[in-house]
């Protein structure tokens, strides 16, 4: 279709996407800088350009996943800023975000993933099953329907992503770098699949972002982007013609602005000199690494000579990274041997570490340190002599051209510069071996070429051995020798020319595809090669997607989220166990910890009288269950020392002549010292001592004055209601239940949303017809169920383990608990709308729940005793109401009728919180 005309051509239909002066910034960073563009309909359109130039931002705007900041985005005949239009069109758009399986749920099986999307688009059971079966058959995923998505290879994940995207027969398919990190064979199969689908549905428009120029060459129409703007548009042929170049890589470089292009020069790697020698630098023999029953690296053997550039190719998860980690000593080999310079790799061998430089896949320098600080830190850690450090850092800065960013933080640097910094750090100690794990992924062609020039210099000039992994075929061609890995095994090694000549049509990629096909045919005969026929999908079309989209609340979509959340919870036992076990542990701890019983307090007496009367006074205190008597105090020094060490809570001093003075009725004073370090305990001690003193006085009075004093002037009958034994646990355990049913369900509910935000699957909420209310309630339900399970366990624990009597209506208590956990999970959902990261969510939820619940909800101090802000919070905070209900039903024997007030408060809170949650939740990313 290379003859596809440009967008302005009169014979083509209206463009599927029309952009007018679209701008987008993230904080101070401008991602899109005034893009005006018409994308033709019914075409395969490619966005090309390196990472970070705004391709993904543009696609997410088109998909409606991101809110438009400035400009107009018209998609399928309407403005995407209009929420009603977005709701109407989202069933016609399918969006597959960047990243392998980014919008999939790794713990769910292949079938469950597709099924979830089917439910979101409102398909009924029959229709769903039919479509899923067909899609899985067409993509060759049918044999793996029960495998969790997280355990699929990169290529399979992308096919699954495609299934999920195609379940609702979209008119516009948006794919963001669908083949990055996928092996050449899977890549080819993926595009064949797309081709077949397009044949069956010729009206469908496809927009693809890609970093692989050789893929882009096969598209109908291209948009070349750099730095937030469009460089050029047109068919591949037009772009080549315009730039006068032979391939798209070169064409792209030619399209770049002058100053960027100037830095570029063709990579020339001179052949290895014969005098570089053949001594072996890196050697692996029968290297095997197993994680449990999974073999990541399977008997890999290779030898790399000193000064050689050795390339490692293969898809994500084929074992490249693991092999490299073994060589650096990060992972132990399960079997076999790895040797560097003839010495076996030993993680404790510090000398060998100083000869190796390693650059891991992800950028792994300290983003909190500046470029210079990073270089200096590593120089010191590699124990360069202190006086050589400055010079060495200067050398590196010069060599890797970092002078103008020397005091910048790495996060602020473009990817290409960061990669140069990583290499500079890996080189700071002048190692003999460099192990580089995908050093150029996401780097633009110009920067990639200069990077390879550096590698060439290191190898040829400094005789550094370089072991590098890559996805790019043109980089592989620059290596002295390469190996292709698949499923933990090395399939073939040799010079690029040898391998290319041996198989296929002479290109390296063809050769690899051929080898991969062989390997797959050998290991997996069951798998049917994808011979897609999507024809019947079209026949089941139309009646699913559209009718449900218009409805505001569709229980099916809501339950889709409930089902998925419940499945995920089931598959993540750690979370559920922590939640349940955690509440029981905390209940136990708090039941004992918030203990108001003060017993067994230590006391000692300094009896300087030592008569019957004075001994009687001491005995009276010693005999009570509140105090335990310790050895008598000998003198004031002893008293001081023992009180300072905290040994004594109470010291009593009876003065000399105490007995005599009491008998005579003359004034006498008893001294008592209470340890005030812990005021609440001191208060209790004080009240005990006063009470005992009073009792003793009454007794003496009776002895002195006889019967006239037997009864007092009046009596106070104290009745301790609801908790006659005054056991702390009876008061505390029922009040702890509301706190635990608040904090943990709220945190889980918050995390359930924030996790999706952090992991990226929230995108499914943005681009599918599910409404905010469906999303919230759907997510809430499993946690309400979990919290109710918790509720029953906690209640049972209180009654049976702590022995707290339950006197009221259990039905009322359970109903209140149900209302309450709906409130608490809804609180979590409201909080989640402010939070972006999981750790912040945990802290914020704890802060917002723990303090009001423990301080202002009547746990210790009754709400009626609170003042100021605390009193206001205590009146409206749901925990306070539920504490009233818990204590009422547990200890006071109450039923529904007696508790109508708090019940009403809980019922009113639910719609308020849900409305707040819906209002705060955004249906698009910012």
């Amino acid at each position, binding site marked *: 279709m290379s003859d596809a005309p440009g967008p302005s051509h009169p014979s083509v239909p209206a463009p599927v996407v029309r952009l007018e002066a679209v701008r987008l910034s993230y904080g101070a960073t401008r991602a899109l800088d005034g893009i005006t563009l018409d994308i033709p309909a019914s075409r395969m359109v490619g966005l090309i350009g390196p990472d970070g130039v705004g391709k993904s931002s543009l696609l997410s705007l088109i998909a409606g996943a991101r809110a438009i900041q400035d400009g107009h985005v018209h998609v399928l005949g309407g403005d995407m800023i209009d929420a009603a239009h977005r709701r109407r069109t989202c069933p016609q758009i399918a969006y597959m975000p960047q990243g392998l399986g980014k919008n999939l749920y790794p713990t769910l099986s292949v079938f469950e993933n597709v099924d979830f999307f089917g439910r979101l688009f409102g398909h009924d059971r029959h229709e769903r099953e039919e479509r899923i079966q067909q899609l899985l058959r067409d993509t060759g995923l049918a044999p793996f329907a029960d495998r969790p998505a997280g355990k699929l290879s990169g290529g399979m994940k992308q096919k699954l992503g495609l299934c999920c995207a195609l379940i609702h027969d979209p008119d516009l398919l948006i794919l963001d770098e669908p083949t990055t990190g996928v092996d050449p064979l899977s890549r080819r199969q993926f595009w064949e699949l797309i081709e077949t689908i397009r044949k069956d549905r010729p009206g469908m428009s496809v927009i693809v972002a890609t970093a692989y120029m050789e893929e882009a060459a096969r598209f109908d129409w291209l948009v070349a982007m750099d730095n937030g703007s469009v460089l050029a548009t047109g068919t591949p042929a037009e772009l080549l013609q315009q730039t006068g170049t032979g391939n798209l890589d070169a064409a792209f470089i030619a399209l770049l602005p002058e100053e960027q292009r100037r830095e570029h020069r063709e990579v020339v790697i001179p052949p290895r000199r014969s005098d570089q020698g053949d001594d072996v630098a890196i050697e692996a023999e029968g290297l095997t690494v197993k994680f449990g029953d999974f073999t990541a690296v399977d008997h890999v053997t290779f030898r790399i000579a000193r000064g050689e550039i050795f390339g490692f190719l293969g898809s994500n998860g084929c074992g490249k990274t693991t092999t490299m980690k073994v060589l650096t000593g*990060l992972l132990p080999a399960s079997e076999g041997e790895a040797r560097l310079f003839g010495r076996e790799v030993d993680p404790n061998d*510090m000398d060998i*570490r*100083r000869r*190796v430089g*390693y650059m891991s896949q992800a950028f*792994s320098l300290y983003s909190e*340190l500046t470029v210079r*600080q990073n270089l200096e*830190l590593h120089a*010191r850690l590699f124990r360069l002599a202190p006086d050589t450090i400055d010079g060495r850092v200067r050398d590196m800065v010069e060599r890797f051209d970092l002078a103008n960013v020397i005091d910048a933080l790495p996060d602020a640097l473009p990817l290409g510069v960061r990669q140069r910094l990583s290499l500079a750090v890996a080189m700071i100690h002048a190692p003999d071996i460099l192990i580089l794990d995908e050093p150029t992924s996401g780097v633009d062609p110009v920067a990639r070429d200069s990077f390879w020039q550096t590698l060439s210099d290191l190898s040829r000039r400094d005789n550094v051995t370089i072991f590098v992994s890559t996805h790019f075929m043109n980089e592989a061609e620059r290596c002295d020798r390469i190996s292709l890995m698949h499923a933990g095994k090395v399939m073939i090694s040799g010079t690029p020319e040898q391998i290319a000549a041996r198989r296929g049509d002479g290109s390296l990629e063809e050769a690899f595809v051929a080898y991969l096909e062989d390997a797959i045919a050998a290991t997996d005969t069951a798998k049917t090669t994808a011979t897609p026929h999507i024809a019947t999908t079209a026949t089941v079309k139309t009646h699913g997607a559209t009718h449900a989209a218009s409805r505001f609340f569709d229980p099916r979509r809501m339950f889709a989220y409930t089902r998925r959340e419940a499945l995920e919870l089931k598959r993540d036992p*750690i*979370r559920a166990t922590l939640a349940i076990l*955690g509440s029981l542990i*905390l209940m136990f*701890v*708090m039941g*004992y*910890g918030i*203990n*108001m019983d003060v017993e*067994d*307090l*230590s006391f000692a007496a300094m009896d300087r009288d030592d008569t019957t009367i004075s001994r009687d006074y001491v005995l009276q205190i010693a005999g009570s269950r509140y105090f335990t008597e310790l050895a008598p105090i000998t003198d004031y020094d002893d008293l001081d020392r023992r009180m*300072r*060490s*905290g040994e004594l*809570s109470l010291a009593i001093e009876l003065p000399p002549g105490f007995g005599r003075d*009491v008998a005579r009725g003359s*004034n006498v004073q008893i001294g*008592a*010292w*209470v340890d*005030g*370090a812990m*005021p609440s305990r001191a*208060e209790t001690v004080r*009240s005990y001592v006063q009470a005992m003193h009073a009792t003793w*006085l009454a007794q*003496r*009075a009776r002895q002195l004055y006889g019967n006239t004093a037997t*009864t007092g*002037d*009046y*009596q*106070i*009958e104290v009745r301790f209601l609801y908790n*006659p034994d*005054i056991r702390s646990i*009876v008061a505390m355990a029922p009040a702890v239940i509301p706190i635990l049913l608040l904090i943990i369900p709220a945190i889980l509910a918050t995390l359930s949303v924030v996790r999706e935000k952090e992991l990226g699957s929230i995108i499914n909420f943005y681009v599918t017809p599910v409404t905010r209310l469906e999303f919230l309630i759907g997510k809430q339900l499993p946690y309400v169920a979990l919290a109710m399970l918790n509720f029953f366990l906690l209640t049972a624990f209180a009654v049976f383990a702590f022995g707290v009597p339950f006197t009221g209506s259990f039905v009322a208590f359970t109903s209140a608990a149900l209302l309450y956990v709906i409130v608490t999970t809804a609180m979590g959902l409201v909080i989640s709308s402010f939070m972006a*990261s999981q*750790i912040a969510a945990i802290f914020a939820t*704890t802060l917002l729940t723990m303090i009001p619940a423990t301080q202002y909800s*009547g746990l210790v101090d*009754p709400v009626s*005793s609170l003042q100021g802000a*605390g009193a206001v919070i205590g009146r409206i905070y749901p925990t306070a109401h539920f504490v009233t209900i818990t*204590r009422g039903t547990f200890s006071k024997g109450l039923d529904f009728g*007696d508790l109508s*007030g708090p019940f009403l408060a809980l019922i009113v809170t639910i719609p308020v919180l849900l409305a707040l949650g819906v209002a705060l939740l955004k249906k698009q990313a910012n």
Partner: protein
Amino acid sequence: MRTGNIVQLGIKELRGLFRDPMMLALIVYAFTVSIYTASRAQPETLNQAALAIVDEDRSPAATRIITAFKPPYFTVPRLIPQAEMMTRMDAGLDTFAINIPPNFQRDLLAQRSPAIQLNVDATRMSQAFTGSGYIQSIVGDEVGEFLSRYRSAAPLPIDLALRARFNPELNKGWFGAINNVISSVTMLSIILTGAALIREREHGTIEHLLVMPVTPFEVMASKIWSMGLVVLVAASVSLVFVVQGLLAVRIGGSVPLFLFGTALYLFATTSMGIFLATSAGTMPQFGLLLMLVLMPLQMLSGATTPRESMPDVIQTIMLAAPNTHFVILAQAILFRGAGLAVVWPQLAALLAIGGALFFLSLRRFRQFLR
């Protein structure tokens, strides 16, 4: 050269921390605002206790009793009919309800020893005890004074001179302030080291470190000294400027001795932070684990309620927790002015627990890196 690595890596940690405004804000908040407000917000034991009175006598004696109850200890008593008493208590509106029976004054003067009924909501433990004590003594005083106008009966001249040592006014704010310093020290030392380790793993930098000539021991030691130092400095500043300065808490003992104890304690808690971080795979799991560990540690350490009133089993188990010893040490030095002669067993225990935790963590840390 090994210590060189520890120093370099520690400086790196400090630099990293100073570039994290969130964490800095958290530290400042925990050691200033949090301590200040928590100390000021501590209510007196008895504050605005809800009281209702059923007056079936309506005599001068009864009125005398009623007017004796005043804020701030009690609310102004609400006079209610007998029928409402139990429903109000059921609904939790009142904590105390006094019932003055009919003919109270007549019986009192006739020495028939009438009975006043005091109903206490015993599910409100914090007020039930002290409150009923206060009520009894208030009623006693009023009745006594009322009677003294009619007859003079000399009470026994035995006086109880009750004094609270170390905190004469039993100012709860003092206790709250010190307690909050302790819990901020615990919380931050664990969070800072744990989060520092998890962050390194999530960013892939830990791997990067381990291909360099650096041992796990050095990595761990560097995190312990740097984060420990940060918390120690923050705690000292807070103790001097917030607790002693702003809150005017009288500190009995030697602040340097306390800080020395804090340093030993930090050795234990930072090791614990690393241990927790190696046990948790991800930040959220670390967060959940943190709460499950922190809450029991804080609640059972003896800082919130006295150790003696806990069951023996728990007292014994909690001897293995560094918090317990630190709380004992802090109370002894800061309130009771105890010296080295008194607190050396706690210092020794902290050193032993810290050492054990450090080696346990080091072992876990080595496995964690595999």
